[in-house]
């Protein structure tokens, strides 16, 4: 019989990783809502966030806050470059959606290969944002990095909500998501809004990568697992729903962590896919997805 405190610890740790999946999942939703595209290069933003921060910390010796402040916009620029040079030309030529999705997958692989050639294939990590810890809360231990993950994730979701609801650009991105022609007819530069959505999504991925690297590691190939988990989180929550992706991420992270404790590490992926299938069977539009949407 497994001790309850071990399960509880797994739930806490799983929720921490799940918050990261949630951020990646929200990244998928931001792009999907604005363009209708599933960007399979989403995981690569997580990898780049961690790798760039590591490089800025170690090679240039920059303080953490400066490294983070440089890495996030840089990854945002990568997102804009992908939109500008890959997605936009394909949209203009009315390429089929599956072709655009495949193109983003190709971008993911390309960036991974470039990362191996320039930064090597060894895993990298950097120190936690706050030294010391963990906090003891009864039978469970909560690392300071987990608190950082929690605070940053919740803060980001709140900021994104405010951005999309109350800012001119946020409303314009939402408008483009609903009817691009109507948006353009009101003077909204649709192409620029699509670039904004890629930049935002890439920045979210980068933040996820920076937050998770101290407690795990980063390497050229972490993009795929985080990308897949974030994608599952978005589907579980209801594809297109940012709050759904957030909840989906936590559900997924907790399910994986508990499955590892109960059944062993090999069952991590089985647990993720079981959650996906179960949710799709019971809630075909996801946990928080709109039932009436096509």
């Amino acid at each position, binding site marked *: 019989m497994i001790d309850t405190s071990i399960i509880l610890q797994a739930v806490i740790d799983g929720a921490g990783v799940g918050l990261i999946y949630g951020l990646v999942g929200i990244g998928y939703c931001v792009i999907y809502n604005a363009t209708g595209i599933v960007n399979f290069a989403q995981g690569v933003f997580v990898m780049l966030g961690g790798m760039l921060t590591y490089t800025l910390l170690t090679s240039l010796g920059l303080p953490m806050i400066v490294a983070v402040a440089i890495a996030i916009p840089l990854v945002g620029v990568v997102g804009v470059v992908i939109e500008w040079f890959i997605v936009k030309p394909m949209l203009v030529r009315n390429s089929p959606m599956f072709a655009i999705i495949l193109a983003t997958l190709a971008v993911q692989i390309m960036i991974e290969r470039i990362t191996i050639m320039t930064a090597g294939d060894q895993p990298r990590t950097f120190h936690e944002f706050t030294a010391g810890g963990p906090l003891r809360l009864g039978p469970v231990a909560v690392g300071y990095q987990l608190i950082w993950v929690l605070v940053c994730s919740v803060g980001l979701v709140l900021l994104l909500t405010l951005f999309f609801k109350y800012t001119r650009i946020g*409303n314009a991105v939402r*408008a483009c998501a609903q*009817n691009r022609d109507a948006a353009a007819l*009101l003077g*909204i530069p649709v192409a620029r809004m699509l670039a904004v959505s890629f930049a935002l999504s890439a920045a979210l991925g980068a933040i996820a990568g920076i937050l998770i690297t101290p407690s795990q590691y980063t390497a050229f190939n972490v993009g795929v697992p985080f990308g897949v988990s974030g994608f599952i989180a978005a589907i579980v929550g209801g594809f297109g729903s940012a709050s759904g992706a957030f909840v989906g991420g936590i559900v997924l992270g907790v399910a994986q962590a508990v499955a590892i404790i109960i059944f062993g590490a090999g069952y991590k992926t089985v647990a993720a896919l079981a959650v996906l299938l179960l949710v799709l069977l019971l809630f075909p539009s996801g946990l928080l997805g709109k039932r009436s949407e096509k």
Partner: protein
Amino acid sequence: MTETTPMTEKTPSAAPLLEIRGLSATYGQVRVLKPTNLSLFEGELVTVLGPNGAGKTTLVRAIMRLVKAQGEVRFKGEDVGRLATHDLAKRGIVLVLEGRGLFGSMTVQENINLGAYTATRVELQERRARIFELFPRLKERLHQQSASLSGGEQQMLAIGRALMADPKLLLLDEPSLGLAPRVAAEILRALGQLNKAGLGILLVEQKAPLALKLARRAYVLTLGRVVKELEAGEIGSHHDIAQYYFS
């Protein structure tokens, strides 16, 4: 919605507000709009009539660069044929789409505010006040989701939102579509008011009697081609427009 003296007649010597020459558009291999000429002078309300599939919607979408088109489009004498849709809106040409093109999950207020995307905060407040004067019902529905409005209210919102962009030329694609006759008449009455205030309007309509009550000139389009142009004096006396609908 700038205040100008309404024109009573077309002035041939003045440069048209909108002039299109040889505008054509294709969907795939099919040429839906054959080379078309059309002009609209400042303060005019011109209607484009024609049966279903005549190419009316393609015409206005081609003007706004929502479909690939060839030919010349001039606005206030300037060639705007190569501008992007959002730049045309900034120049003062705004189209109210067939089906209204509202952002359904957004509130009336959010839709209205997006209409003034390029405006300053002060301009936004001024324009909102004018829109509410024209369509008081929108003010009552401000926080309601636009998808939940009635058809007539949605059309008012679509026109109101377009007016928030402070157009010099308003294009409307079938604004009476799907509306009860009384509501359609109300919408067209509002358009008449706007035109009297000096706004140039290009009205695409299938319901000829409604449109001809307002229009100063009319173009009849069938099978992607202008087959008849009716001048100011001819509209009231012309009774054979129906033949183009059934020919």
